[in-house]
Structure formats: structure tokens, C-alpha cells
């Protein structure tokens, strides 16, 4: 909320300077986000009068003037010629600071001392151009800070939290300022001169039973002359971001800003039957609001209706047919209290938020309704003339009765960690306008004022005590902690390991938005997605179910600035529709593109391929301790059908990896293939559950045998390897593939593989004969199972 310091001061006696006040408000919970000085970006400039002017003894173009303030006479060297004895001027004294950081000090100019400077409007930052120095009106007082003469003010921007509706006005802010600074709050009084007929003869008001309106007050002013407001009213409204309309409407806005009570002025002659009824809208009713829009209403919305139908949306906006216009003669001024939740619902349904609805939603002071009405009526009489009808209408069936709150100093001491004393509590609550008394030793009974709707329980009062006492006066005391076991950190630790293993493998971590465009979502060919009801942009409408498309976008972005070699990964949840709440599955995805090793003088310039990708996944699984992982040939919409592997961990599907589908390579304009993987964290974490166990070092020697054989290309090596191992699980320690060869001397449709089998027993040294015997069975298996033609064994 924006407010003027000068306006605030109308309610204060002994207010501290603006910036000091801002600091104090901030430190007691009303954050002042900015303080802007208006009309005077300078200091130490006072009004003065020219006594005499002579030519400077040593310079033809300069004058030497005697200038007096209220207390002294100074001699000033000046380059301008437009002043004469008797003129009032703005004089910058030594120590003054002018806009642009220009500082004034005593100095010798051509051998004569100058004790200040007479300023031009440009020098004061008041205009862009000026001729000569500024000559002030003849009646300007002497020795006055020139800023006050200019009407200098400070506009403060306050961040008001939703609980402090009482601060959404000048008066409320002044009350708070008084409470937190010790300045005195002096309220304004308004008396309405009631020269007209009794109000009952002019208008009638009724509230339908159970309508969410607890008070409705109104006054009638007859014979107003609608016209523009005086300049000072216009200026004040405009400084607070409100456009001036006409004198009557401006008064309602001025009162709203000053008291926080939203008002509405109806043209009484345009209310059918000269009466209003506060009631829910009927099904099918409509209203044209003063912004010219027609709005459909429903019974959840409260309206002010005349005989003809809705005339205003209660607490939100008036209707166009009954608004005050240039021809208006009689006005009905409304000051009411509508239920916050009702106003909020209406405002949200119609997407219509106003200064009025903003305040009603947060809660206005029901006890301030009549006072604001009187203020408005008396100001209308002043600005628009006319006669006020006798007496207000004031329908207020149930008076507000805030609850009395018991406050225990002992409990407060425990919560705040300081020794809270009864006198202190009474003093602080008193300053805040809360009537408080000690009801029994250590217990204070407190009755908050009606404008503090946020104070309903003991904890609310504890906060009040703490904030006025000052948070920074509360000591810091480390807690005495009870030791308790906890193991909630496991998932986080696992994710950390994934990140550290992948970054160790050269992958840089990226972070993408969880929501993507429908197009990007559809790329991975999934079914329905989790969609946002109210997306910000089309690029962010569906929660992604796959991470790979985001990585492709990242790749495109980096390629665009010639970053050709990439290893990136992302660890994030993917979202799929579930029963009620969508299901979140954490995934880790990676992308490889370009050279296998970083480009440089000493590495081969090979491009990455499928097996680099698989290798990364294999090392990741190994690093995570995942057991029983298997890869199977698979298909996936994003991937090359012949270069795709599906991962299974612990028998469960756990992700895919492979070469990007050639269609996608084209789409992204890639010259080289790109490789990706996307793994599910949960099954991998489950497969990694077992802790590491030490296995005794081998005590007996190994014996290795190599086999080279030609076998059909269609036989997966994984099957061959498994068959070899199973030949003798006890003595075959490892099976390593060390060569794959296609081409010369190898029949087409086949390939040559070379494998080293290492034999070792954990119980004894194997004899040569035993090794030969097992190896023979391996060779036989290869021949029998896979039709392999063994060339060397």
C-alpha cells in the first residue's frame, strides 16, 4: 500500500522523521519497501531575500550579493542577473546537497568568499530548463526549509500482510505508527450538518434475512453540484494511484484511503423506488458495472438491489445505471460491512478485484462504518454543496463482540524464551489499543479493538508482545535437543549418489521446468498427461512424463551457440495420472552427443556411440550397487529401433537407453547421432538394497583360456556369455569379450568373437586337466547351442 507521510502526520503528534518511521515500522512487522521523497531531491536549501547586488570586484560577469535569511546575512557570488534587491530566492547553504550529488561549500570565487548558492529550478531538479535563478513569490517566509514550501512529502510503499487489514488506510497506519513509535494518535472528528428532511422520507434500506451483511449505513445529500474536485484533493488521490472522477466520487475514494472503509455513492434518483435491498442475486440476473461490462450473477453473489434489480455488487463495484454523473442531484452514500468470504467469492468468480473488494475480503472495522459515512457526508457538503438529510440510516442488528482473550505470562515466557512480565504485557497491549487487565496473578485478560480482527487467540497476543518488545531483543538460546533416531534421509542420499556418479562420468546437471508444451509432451508418445488448469503459457501446460524431450531441447539450445559436444543429465520426477492425485516417479536421464573425449590435442577424435551410453548406465548401476540388472533389445518411440535397450533391475522394468531416432535427428538438425538414457530411480534403488560384503581374496591361481569363434550375427552376445558362465559356475570366474570382428574372411551374416575365460577354484589349485576338461565343455556348448564355429581354443 502506498501512503503519504504528510497525510499520516495529520493523525500524529510527535511523529519521527519519515525514514526513521519507516525503519521502526519495518522492524515491527509492517515492511516499508520504499520511501520516495517527492518534490525536493535536495537538502539544506532555505528561503532568503536579496538585500543588495553589486558587480563582483574582479569579474564583470559575476555579481556579489548580500542575502539574508531569518537569522543571518550572507554574501553570495552569483552568475545570474535576473534578481534585484527585495527578491525572495532559494538559497543553498554550505552543506547543502543538490540533485546529482552536487555539494555546496564555502569557497572563494575570484578572490571573494561565497557563503552559499542561489539556485535555479534546474539546479533544484524542479525543471529541465530555466533562465537565471528561481524567484519565489513575494509572500514566501524567510529561513524556511524550501522543501516544505514546495509541499515536499515522502511516499511510502508498505507490504501489508493479509492479517493486517487494519493497516490498509492512512488512519490505521497512523494508529500503528503511534503504537510502535510512542507518538500520540489524534483522531479527526466529523460532524454532519443535517439541514435537510428526515432521511426516512428520502430513502429506504433493508437487508434480507441471513444475507452476509452485518451492517448497512447510509446518508442522503440533496442538491449536490457535481463538478471537478479542488486541486489538492486531485493531487492527493493521484499520488495514491487513484484517478480523480468528480467531487462526490473523489470523496468516497478519499475516505476509503483515509479510513479503509469502502463507500459507494448512488444517484438516488436513479434507484427505482428510492430504496435498496441487500440480498443475494437471483438466478439469471445480470448487472452492468461501472466499467461498462455486463456480468452474469448467481445466488452466491451479494447485491444491492433496487425495485428493478441489482444496482451494485456488494463490496465489489457499483452498477452503471445508478452511478453518479454530472446531472446527479441527490446522492445516497453507502457505508456497509459485508462478510469477507462473500466478497471474496464474488470477486474471484467475476475476476474483478477492486480497492473495495480488497479491503472487504481482508475485513474492515465494523465499528468504523458510521464514522466513515459522516466523514464522507461532511466532505461532500463541503465540495459539492447541498443539504444532508436528517440522521443516518444504520442497520446494525448484532453488535460486534470480540472475544476476551486470556494471556498467560508463563506460557508466553516459554514460547518466546524470555521472562515476560505482567506490567510489560499491559503496557504493550495498551499501546496497541487492546484493553487489558490482570485478571489473576500472571494472567492478563485482553479485549482487542474491533479493527484488529486478526487477534482472536492467545498466540496472536504473544506475537504482538514479541514484535513490540522487538524480535532483536529476544536472546538467542540454542535448544537442548532430545536425541532421536531418524532415517528419513535415505532417498536423498541415493539421489546424491546418482548425481555424483554421473558428474564423475563427465555429465553436467541440468534443471528443466516440470511443465512442458503439449507438443513436447506428445513426443515420447505417452497417453494422457497431468495437465494444469491454469497454465501461464502454452510452453508450460502439461507435467512431463519423460525427461528426454527436455534434454533434447537443452541440446538444441547449446548447439545453437556452437556447443557441439555434450554430456548432460537431469534427475527429476515424472508425472503420470493416478487415482485422484497424480503419481510421481523419479527418473534420471542423460544425453550424449559429439566426441567421446573432450576435443583437444591428445585424445582420439571418435564420436560417442551406443556402447558409451550403455557403459555409462552400467557404471552407474555398479556404483549404486544395483544387482541383477539386465538389458534387453527393445523399441521406444524416441529411439532407433535397432539401437535400443530396455533395462530391468530386480526383474522390473527400470528404463531405456539407445540412439535417438533418425526422425528426431532430422527434427533437431543433428549431423551426428545422439544417445540418451532414462532410468527409473525406484526399481534401481530397490535392487541396490543390499549392503556391500567383503569377499575373501583368491588364494589359488587362475588359469585363462582364449576362444575365438564365428557365430551368426543374430545370436546376442549376452546369451553366449550366460551360456559360457553356466557351463561351470564354480570354476568359471570371469568371461571377457576382447574382440568383435566383421569383414574379411568372415562369411556375411556372421561375426567373429573372441573371449577370454578365466578359471579358478576357491578351494584348491585347478589342474591343467580339469581346466581343459571344463574348457572343452565350453567349446562344445558354443557349438551345440549357437552353431558357433570355433577357430581357436
Amino acid at each position, binding site marked *: 500500500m502506498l501512503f503519504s507521510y504528510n497525510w499520516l502526520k495529520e493523525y500524529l503528534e510527535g511523529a519521527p522523521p519519515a525514514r526513521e518511521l519507516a525503519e521502526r515500522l519495518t522492524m515491527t512487522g509492517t515492511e516499508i519497501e520504499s520511501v520516495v521523497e517527492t518534490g525536493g531531491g535536495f537538502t539544506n536549501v532555505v528561503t532568503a531575500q536579496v538585500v543588495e547586488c553589486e558587480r563582483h570586484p574582479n569579474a564583470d560577469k559575476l555579481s556579489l550579493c548580500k542575502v539574508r535569511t531569518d537569522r543571518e546575512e550572507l554574501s553570495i557570488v552569483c552568475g545570474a542577473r535576473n534578481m534585484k534587491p527585495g527578491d525572495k530566492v532559494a538559497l543553498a547553504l554550505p552543506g547543502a546537497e543538490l540533485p546529482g550529488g552536487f555539494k555546496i561549500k564555502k569557497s572563494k570565487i575570484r578572490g571573494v568568499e561565497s557563503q552559499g548558492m542561489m539556485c535555479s529550478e534546474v539546479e533544484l531538479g524542479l525543471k529541465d530548463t530555466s533562465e537565471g535563478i528561481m524567484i519565489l513569490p513575494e509572500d514566501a517566509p524567510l529561513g524556511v526549509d524550501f522543501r516544505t514550501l514546495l509541499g515536499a512529502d515522502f511516499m511510502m510503499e508498505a507490504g501489508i500482510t493479509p492479517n493486517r487489514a487494519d493497516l490498509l488506510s492512512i488512519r490505521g497506519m497512523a494508529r500503528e505508527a503511534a503504537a510502535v513509535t510512542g507518538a500520540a494518535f489524534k483522531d479527526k472528528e466529523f460532524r454532519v450538518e443535517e439541514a435537510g428532511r428526515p432521511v426516512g422520507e428520502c430513502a429506504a434500506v433493508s437487508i434480507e434475512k441471513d444475507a452476509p451483511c452485518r451492517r448497512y449505513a447510509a446518508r442522503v445529500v440533496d442538491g449536490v453540484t457535481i463538478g471537478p474536485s479542488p486541486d489538492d484533493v486531485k493531487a492527493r488521490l493521484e499520488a495514491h494511484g487513484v484517478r480523480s472522477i468528480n467531487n462526490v466520487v473523489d470523496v468516497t475514494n478519499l475516505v476509503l484511503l483515509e479510513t479503509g472503509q469502502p463507500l459507494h455513492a448512488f444517484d438516488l434518483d436513479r434507484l427505482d423506488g428510492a430504496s435498496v435491498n441487500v440480498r443475494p442475486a437471483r438466478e439469471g440476473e445480470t448487472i452492468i458495472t461501472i466499467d461498462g461490462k455486463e456480468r452474469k450473477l448467481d445466488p452466491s453473489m451479494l447485491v444491492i438491489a433496487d425495485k428493478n434489480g441489482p444496482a451494485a455488487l456488494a463490496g465489489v463495484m457499483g452498477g452503471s445505471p445508478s452511478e453518479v454523473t454530472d446531472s446527479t442531484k441527490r446522492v445516497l452514500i453507502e457505508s456497509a460491512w459485508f462478510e*469477507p468470504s462473500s466478497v471474496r467469492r464474488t470477486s474471484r468468480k467475476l475476476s474483478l478485484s477492486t480497492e473495495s473488494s480488497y479491503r472487504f475480503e481482508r475485513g474492515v472495522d465494523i465499528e468504523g462504518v458510521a464514522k466513515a459515512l459522516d466523514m464522507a457526508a461532511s466532505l461532500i457538503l463541503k465540495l459539492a454543496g447541498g443539504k444532508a438529510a436528517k440522521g443516518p440510516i444504520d442497520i446494525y442488528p448484532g453488535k460486534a463482540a470480540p472475544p476476551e482473550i486470556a494471556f498467560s505470562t508463563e506460557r508466553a515466557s516459554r514460547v518466546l524464551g524470555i521472562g515476560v512480565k505482567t506490567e510489560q504485557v499491559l503496557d504493550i497491549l495498551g499501546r496497541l489499543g487492546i484493553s487489558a487487565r490482570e485478571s489473576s496473578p500472571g494472567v492478563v485478560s485482553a479485549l482487542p479493538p474491533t479493527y484488529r480482527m486478526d487477534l482472536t487467540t492467545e498466540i496472536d497476543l504473544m506475537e504482538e508482545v514479541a*514484535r513490540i518488545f522487538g524480535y532483536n531483543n529476544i536472546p538467542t538460546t*540454542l*535448544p537442548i535437543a532430545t536425541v532421536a533416531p531418524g532415517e528419513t534421509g535415505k532417498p536423498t542420499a541415493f539421489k546424491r549418489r546418482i548425481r555424483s556418479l554421473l558428474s564423475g562420468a563427465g555429465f553436467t*546437471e541440468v534443471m528443466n521446468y516440470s511443465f512442458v508444451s503439449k507438443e513436447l509432451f506428445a513426443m515420447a508418445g505417452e497417453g494422457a498427461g497431468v495437465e494444469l488448469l491454469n497454465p501461464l503459457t502454452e510452453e508450460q501446460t502439461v507435467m512431463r512424463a519423460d525427461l528426454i524431450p527436455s534434454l533434447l531441447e537443452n541440446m538444441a539450445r547449446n548447439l545453437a551457440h556452437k556447443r557441439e559436444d555434450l554430456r*548432460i543429465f537431469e534427475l527429476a520426477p515424472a*508425472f503420470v495420472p493416478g487415482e485422484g*492425485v*497424480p503419481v510421481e516417479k523419479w527418473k534420471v536421464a542423460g544425453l550424449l552427443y559429439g566426441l567421446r573425449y573432450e576435443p583437444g590435442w591428445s585424445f582420439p577424435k571418435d564420436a560417442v556411440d551406443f556402447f558409451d551410453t550403455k557403459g555409462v548406465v552400467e557404471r552407474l548401476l555398479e556404483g549404486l550397487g544395483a544387482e541383477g540388472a539386465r538389458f534387453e533389445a527393445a523399441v521406444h518411440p524416441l529411439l532407433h529401433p535397432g539401437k535400443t535397450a530396455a533395462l530391468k533391475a530386480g526383474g522390473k522394468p527400470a528404463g531405456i537407453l539407445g540412439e535417438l531416432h533418425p526422425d528426431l535427428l532430422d527434427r533437431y538438425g543433428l549431423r551426428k547421432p545422439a544417445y540418451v538414457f532414462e532410468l527409473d530411480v525406484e526399481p534401481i534403488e530397490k535392487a541396490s538394497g543390499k549392503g556391500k560384503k567383503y569377499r575373501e581374496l583368491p588364494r589359488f591361481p587362475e588359469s585363462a583360456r582364449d576362444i575365438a569363434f564365428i557365430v551368426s550375427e543374430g545370436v546376442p552376445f549376452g546369451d553366449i556369455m550366460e551360456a559360457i558362465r553356466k557351463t561351470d559356475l564354480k570354476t568359471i570366474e570371469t568371461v571377457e569379450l576382447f574382440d568383435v570382428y566383421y569383414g574379411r574372411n568372415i562369411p556375411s551374416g556372421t561375426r567373429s568373437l573372441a573371449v577370454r575365460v578365466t578359471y579358478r577354484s576357491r578351494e584348491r589349485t585347478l589342474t591343467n586337466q580339469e581346466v581343459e576338461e571344463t574348457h572343452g565343455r565350453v567349446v562344445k556348448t558354443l557349438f551345440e547351442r549357437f552353431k558357433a564355429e570355433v577357430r581357436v581354443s
Partner: protein
Amino acid sequence: MSRRVEDLEREALQELSRASSERESLREARNRYLGRKGEVAELLKGLGSLPPEERKKAGEAVNNLKDRLEEAFDGALSAFDESEKRERLEKERVDITLPGRSIRPGKLHPVTRITDEIEDIFTGLGFDIAEGPEVELDYYNFEALNFPKDHPARDMQDTFFISDEVVLRTHTSPVQIRVMEKGRPPLRVIAPGTVYRRDSDLTHSPMFHQIEGFMVDRDISFANLKAVLTLFLERLFGGTAVRFRPSFFPFVEPGAEVDIRCVICGGNGCRVCKGSGWLEILGAGMIHPNVFRKVGYDPGEYSGFAFGLGVERVAMLKFGIGDLRLLFENDMRFLEQF
């Protein structure tokens, strides 16, 4: 005898200086004089023919000669080795200014780095780490945290909706409720995670990261909150000044905003701190009794504090990143700096 010793020495040393340019001749010369059948050995053999009274003295002289020659020849030989080695090593010289060769590790995202750093500080203080879903029920995101339906406090957090009852969480605070529902005090937990708000401009990202923390036990006070958060901020920012201001969040009371002395200007006022000399860094407060009631804790028995901070903001301050959007553009030129 002594003359022979002298002659032999002179002769041997002359030969040494002649042979010193070539290792082989040096070795041959050494052999000739000091070998098993060399001149010196011959000399020793000849000692037997001397009268016993001379034998001892002559023996000493020959042995001294042997020592001296050995020293001279070995010295020359090893000097030879040294210079040869020097030559060889000189040839093996590499250009050490060429870049080193290694597989370069990737970089972790600055948000991850800061999250890790904060987690480490709190786990060091005995806090556990918890997680919660990013798509949340209205109940956990608002209702249980004392944001009633139709309350303006909900406007503090612009919300993305999946349905009427399902939202993208606007803060990590729902994890408080989930952890308290499952466990019993004492609790000391932090919950890092991704959160979403329907807001996007220079200083707001629709997706960002928070770290929530809370501590619940008997007799936890506001003074405890101040101590733990001051300690945390001092560790995170290296001994900075900290101040606490009253503020409002529905799920805490008394509520506080915690500022640190501006790390950019040191408190003199700058653009980043909007001239105030302070930077808002944490929201905090004592857990509201209504929140305890929602999870079935007796607010008369337990008290606690909670706090939350934005990870991006800390990352930007600590790394001096001026533009929030950089964090989600995934430009390698940016990411590889961390």
C-alpha cells in the same frame, strides 16, 4: 716400493684423464689397475717378497693407493653416468605447458550445490532429511497449514491447479504436515524440494526450490529459533550479521522474516538490497497451534519452530548471479562455471 707406488699412481691418473671422455676405456683402465689381476693386485702380491719389517708399511701404502685410485676411477665413472643421465633426461623433456589429459567430470547445478551445502549444515545439527510430493492435495498445501478456503492469505501464493483439490505445491511446508502425521516429537527435519508458483518475471520463476525446516519438542522457544537460524546463516554466509523482523505466514505465529547484512554492499546500500543494506533470506516462526491440532499434537504439550528459504536466491547471492532465468536455461557456458 714407495716409488713404485708413486709411479703407479701417476701413471694411473694420467691414464684416467686420457680415458675420461669414453666410458669403455675408462672402465678398461680401471680394470688394468684395480682389477683382480691388475697392477695394484700385482703390487700387493709382491709384498710377500719384502722383509717383514717393511711389509706392514708397504702394505698400508698400497692399500691407500688402492683406495685413492678407486675413488678417482669411480668418481670419474659416476660423473660419466651422471652426465649421460642428464643428457638422456634432457631429451625426455616435455612441454609442461600443454594442457593435462583427463576425463573432465561434469558439474552439478548451482541449485544442487547450494541444497547440498544447506543439507550438510543441518544434518550436522542433527536434522533428518525428508521429501514430499510436488503435486499436492489442497489439504496439505493450504488447509492443514492454516490457510482456510476463501481466505486472502491464499493470495500470497499464486497457485497452479491440476483440479479443485489438487495443486502443484507452492511451498515445501506440506512436508511438515506429512512428517508430523507419521511421526511423533521430538522432530528435527529439513525438506528440500521443488515448488511452483504462477508467477514469471525477472525475479520470479514459475518453478523454483525451497528448503523447509522444522523442530518440534517440548519447550522449543522463539529464542531457540533465533539461535538455530543465526547459527545456520552464519555458517552459510560466513559470519554475517542477522536480524529478525515480524512477518506473517498463516502456519506460524509469531512469524518472522530473517534478513542478513547485504553480501553485495556490506550494508551500505546497493541495488540488490534496494538501498536497505539488508537481504531477506528466510521466513520463519513458531508453528501455529492450529497446525499442531491438524496433526493431532497437543499445542499445550509441544511447541516448535519452522522456517523456509529459497535456494535460487541463496545461489544467486553466493555465486553472484544477477539473472534468475540463467538457472533454468541450461546453457553449458553457465552451468560449467560451477
